[in-house]
C-alpha cells in the first residue's frame, strides 16, 4: 500500500512540476505577447500622431504657399482658402497671417479678432520661435503653451519668403497655426477604446507633453515621434502593469490536473489489473500446489510454463531440468540419462520417440513405471490456447492392489481348479467301479461264475462266486476310500469356510500333545513305512487346554506333510516346553521352502506350484486350516526352512495353567 501511495504522490509531484513549468513558460510568452500587442498599439498611435501633425504642417505650408504666390491676397480670398483647409479639423483653433510680423488676417475671425494688429516682433517670447522657423526655413511647431482661450496648445509657425525688387527670397512674414493639444491628441486616438492601457507623451527633455505621469515604473513600450521641431516619445503600458499570470494558467492547471487524474486512474487500473493477475496466479499456484498429483503446463512450443512441487517429487531424477522454459523433450532426456524410466532402459531413443508421439496425441492416458518402482498414470490434454496440461497420478498403490487382486483371483482360480481336479479324480474311481458293479457281465469273474454255474459243479461255483465277490468287495472298498477322500476334501473346504465366517467352535478340554501325537503317528505309520521312512516322537510337553479333534487335525496334517515330502530318513516330532508355551516341532527331510514359498503355503487358497500339488496331491488347504486352527487356540504355527535343508513346522500353544483357563 505505501508503495502504491508513493507512486500516486510521484504523479502529483510530477503534475505540479509540469504545471509550474508550463505556467512559467506560458507567463513569459504572455508578457512577450502583451508587449508585442502594446508595441503595435503604440506604433499605430505614433503613426496617427504623425499623420495629424503632417496635416497641420500641410495646412500651414499650404497657406504659406498661397501668400508666397500672391502676397497681396485679400482677406476674403484668405478666408475661403482657410475655410477649405480647416474644414473638419477641429483641433486647429485659428490660423493667422502676419506680414512683417504684424497679424493682419486671422481665421476664424471670431473669437480671434483681438489678435489682429498684434505686432509679434514686440513679443520676444514669440520671436524666439519665429526666428527658429525663419532660420530653418520651414515650419516649426512649438509647445505646449497655455492658450488665451484656455487649455494648452501648440503653435506651428511657417515663414513666408517672397521675391521683391530689392531682394530675392525676402522674408515677407510668418503664418501661424494654433493647435488645441487636447483636440489633437484625442483626434489621434489617445482616448480610444483600449482603456486598459496608460499612455504618456514626453518631449526630448522628458517633460510631460500629454497623458499620465509616472509610466517609467511600468516598464512602458516607447515609440519616438519626430516632426518639424517636435521630438516626442510615446510611452505605453498596461494600466495594471504587465500581467505576470497568463489567462491560460487555470486551463493549464486543469489540463495538467486532468492528465494527473487520468494517469492516477490508469495507474490504479494497471495496479488493479496487476493485483488481480497476481492474485489469480497465486490462487492458481496454491491450487496447483494443493494437488496430490503431479501437475505441469507446457506451452505451444512444448516448453515448461509451470509445474508443482509434487511433479518434481515424482520425477526426482529429472527435477533438476524442470526449469521454466525448458523443453519437454530435454526434460525427458535428462530423466532418461539418469535411468528414471524403467521401461526405457536399453532402448532409450525408441522409448523417447514413442513417448513424444503419445505426448503429441493429447488425450491417450498411459501408465509409466519409474526407476524407484512407482507407477504413474500420465494424462495430457491440449488447451484451446495450445498449451499442454499434464497430470501425473501415482497409481502404485492401485497397481499393487490390482496385482494383489489379480493374484488372489488367480490363487482362487487355481484353488477351484485344484478342488475340481481333486473331486473329479475320486469321482472317476467311484463312478468307474460302480459302472462295473452295475454291469457285472463284463467282468471275467462274473463270466466264470456263469460258466461254472452252467457246469453245475458246486465247489467250482463257490470258488467262482468267491472270486466274483472279491471283485465286488475290492470295487466297494475303492469306492469307499474315494468316498472318504471326497469327504475329507469337503470337510476341509467347509472348515475353511467356517473359519472364514467365524462359525467354527472349539470343544476345549485338557489334552496331552504327547498322546495326540502318538495317535497320529500310529495312524500314519503305514504310509511312512510304505515310503521307507521312520517317524520318531521325541520329548515331553505339558497339557494344553484345546479341542483334541482340531489339535489332532493340525498334527495329522503336519506329520502327514512331513511324511509326504520326506524322501528318506526319519520324520521327527519333537515336543518341548518353553515357559508357558508348549511346542510341537515336526521336522522333515524334504526339499525345503524358499521365502516366497513360505509366504504362499499359509495363505488361504494358496498352494505351491501345481506340479507340487500334482506330485503330492491335496488342494493346499491343510496348512492354512492348521494355521487358522492354531491361532483360534491362541497359538501360532510357523515354519523355519530353506531350500535344500528340509523344513521344521512349529506349533506353539499355551500350556494349561489351571482352573481359570478352563473357566475362560
Amino acid at each position: 500500500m505505501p508503495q502504491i501511495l508513493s507512486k500516486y504522490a510521484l504523479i502529483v509531484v510530477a503534475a505540479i512540476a509540469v504545471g509550474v513549468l508550463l505556467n512559467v513558460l506560458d507567463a513569459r510568452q504572455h508578457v512577450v505577447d502583451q508587449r508585442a500587442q502594446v508595441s503595435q498599439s503604440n506604433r499605430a498611435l505614433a503613426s496617427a500622431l504623425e499623420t495629424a501633425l503632417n496635416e497641420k504642417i500641410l495646412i500651414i505650408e499650404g497657406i504659406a504657399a498661397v501668400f508666397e504666390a500672391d502676397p497681396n491676397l485679400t482677406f476674403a480670398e484668405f478666408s475661403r482658402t482657410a475655410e477649405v483647409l480647416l474644414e473638419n479639423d477641429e483641433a486647429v483653433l485659428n490660423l493667422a497671417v502676419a506680414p512683417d510680423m504684424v497679424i493682419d488676417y486671422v481665421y476664424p475671425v471670431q473669437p480671434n479678432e483681438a489678435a489682429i494688429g498684434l505686432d509679434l516682433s514686440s513679443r520676444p517670447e514669440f520671436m524666439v520661435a519665429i526666428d527658429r522657423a525663419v532660420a530653418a526655413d520651414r515650419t516649426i511647431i512649438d509647445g505646449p503653451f497655455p492658450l488665451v482661450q484656455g487649455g494648452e496648445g501648440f503653435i506651428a509657425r511657417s515663414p513666408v519668403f517672397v521675391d521683391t525688387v530689392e531682394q530675392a527670397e525676402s522674408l515677407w512674414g510668418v503664418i501661424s497655426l494654433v493647435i488645441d493639444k487636447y483636440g489633437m491628441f484625442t483626434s489621434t486616438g489617445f482616448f480610444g477604446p483600449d482603456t486598459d492601457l496608460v499612455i504618456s507623451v514626453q518631449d526630448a527633455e522628458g517633460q510631460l507633453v500629454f497623458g499620465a505621469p509616472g509610466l517609467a515604473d511600468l516598464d512602458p513600450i516607447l515609440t519616438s515621434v519626430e516632426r518639424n521641431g517636435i521630438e516626442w516619445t510615446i510611452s505605453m503600458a498596461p494600466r495594471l502593469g504587465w500581467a505576470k499570470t497568463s489567462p491560460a494558467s487555470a486551463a493549464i492547471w486543469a489540463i495538467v490536473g486532468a492528465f494527473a487524474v487520468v494517469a492516477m486512474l490508469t495507474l490504479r487500473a494497471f495496479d488493479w489489473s496487476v493485483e488481480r493477475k497476481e492474485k489469480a496466479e497465486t490462487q492458481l499456484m496454491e491450487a496447483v500446489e494443493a494437488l496430490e498429483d503431479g501437475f505441469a503446463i507446457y506451452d505451444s512450443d512444448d516448453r515448461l510454463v509451470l509445474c508443482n512441487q509434487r511433479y518434481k517429487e515424482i520425477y526426482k531424477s529429472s527435477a533438476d531440468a524442470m526449469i521454466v522454459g525448458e523443453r519437454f523433450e530435454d526434460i525427458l532426456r535428462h530423466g532418461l540419462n539418469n535411468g528414471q524410466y524403467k521401461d526405457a532402459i536399453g532402448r532409450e531413443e525408441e522409448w523417447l520417440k514413442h513417448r513424444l508421439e503419445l505426448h503429441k496425441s493429447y488425450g491417450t492416458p498411459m501408465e509409466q513405471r519409474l526407476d524407484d518402482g512407482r507407477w504413474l498414470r500420465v494424462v495430457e490434454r491440449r488447451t484451446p490456447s495450445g498449451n499442454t496440461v499434464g497430470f501425473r497420478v501415482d497409481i502404485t498403490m492401485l497397481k499393487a492392489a490390482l496385482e494383489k487382486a489379480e493374484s488372489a483371483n488367480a490363487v482362487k482360480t487355481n484353488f477351484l481348479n485344484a478342488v475340481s481336479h481333486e473331486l473329479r479324480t475320486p469321482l472317476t474311481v467311484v463312478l468307474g467301479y460302480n459302472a462295473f458293479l452295475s454291469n457285472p457281465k463284463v467282468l471275467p469273474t462274473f463270466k466264470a461264475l456263469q460258466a461254472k454255474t452252467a457246469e453245475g459243479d458246486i465247489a467250482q461255483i463257490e470258488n467262482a462266486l468267491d472270486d466274483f465277490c472279491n471283485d465286488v468287495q475290492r470295487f466297494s472298498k475303492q469306492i469307499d476310500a474315494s468316498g472318504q477322500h471326497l469327504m475329507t476334501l469337503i470337510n476341509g473346504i467347509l472348515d475353511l469356510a467356517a473359519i472364514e465366517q467365524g462359525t467354527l467352535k472349539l470343544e476345549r478340554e485338557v489334552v496331552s500333545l504327547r498322546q495326540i501325537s502318538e495317535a497320529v503317528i500310529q495312524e500314519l505309520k503305514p504310509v511312512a513305512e510304505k515310503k521307507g521312512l521312520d517317524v520318531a516322537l521325541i520329548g515331553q510337553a505339558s497339557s494344553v487346554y484345546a479341542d483334541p479333534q482340531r489339535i489332532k487335525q493340525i498334527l495329522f496334517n503336519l506329520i502327514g506333510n512331513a511324511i509326504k515330502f520326506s524322501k528318506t530318513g526319519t520324520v521327527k516330532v519333537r515336543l518341548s516346553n518353553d515357559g508357558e508355551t508348549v511346542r510341537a516341532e515336526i521336522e522333515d527331510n524334504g526339499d525345503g521352502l524358499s521365502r516366497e514359498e513360505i509366504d504362499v503355503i499359509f495363505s488361504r487358497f494358496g498352494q505351491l506350484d501345481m506340479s507340487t500339488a500334482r506330485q503330492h496331491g491335496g488342494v493346499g488347504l491343510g496348512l492354512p486350516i492348521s494355521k487358522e486352527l492354531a491361532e483360534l487356540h491362541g497359538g501360532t504355527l510357523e515354519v523355519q526352512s530353506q531350500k535344500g535343508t528340509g523344513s521344521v513346522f512349529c506349533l506353539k500353544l499355551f500350556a494349561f495353567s489351571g482352573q481359570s483357563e478352563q473357566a475362560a
Partner: protein
Amino acid sequence: MPELKTILHVDDDEDILEIARMALQLVDSFDLHQFSSGPAALDSLDTVAPQLLLLDVMMPGMTGPELSCHIRSIDRHKDIPVIFMTAKAEDSMSKELLESGALGVITKPFDPMTLGSQIRSIWSKQKNLAIHQ
C-alpha cells in the same frame, strides 16, 4: 489308416489304471499297455509300438503334455496321435491341449462302458482328417 488296436495308457493313479484297463480290455478288446509314469512308458515305447497314446495330464515327475512333447521329439514316434485324459475340466485346458496337437481330450470322470467307443470316435476323426489330407 488301420483300425485302432494298440493303445499305450499312462496314469499315476492305480484305480484309474484299473478302471481304464477293464473298460478297454473287458468292455472293448484293445491291445492295452499301461504304465504309471512317463519314463516307464518311454522305456517301453519301441516294444509296444502303440497306435495311440492315452495320457493323463497331471502326473508327478513328468506330466502328460511333457511326455507327449518328449515322444514327438523322437522322430520315429512323432506321428503317434495323443488323447489326453484329465480331471481338469476348464475349457482353457482342453483348448490348450488341442492347440498343442492333441487328437482329443477326455474329461474325468469318464464312463468305462463307453470309453472305448469314445476313443474310437476320436480316432476316426483323425482318420477322416488323414483322408482329407
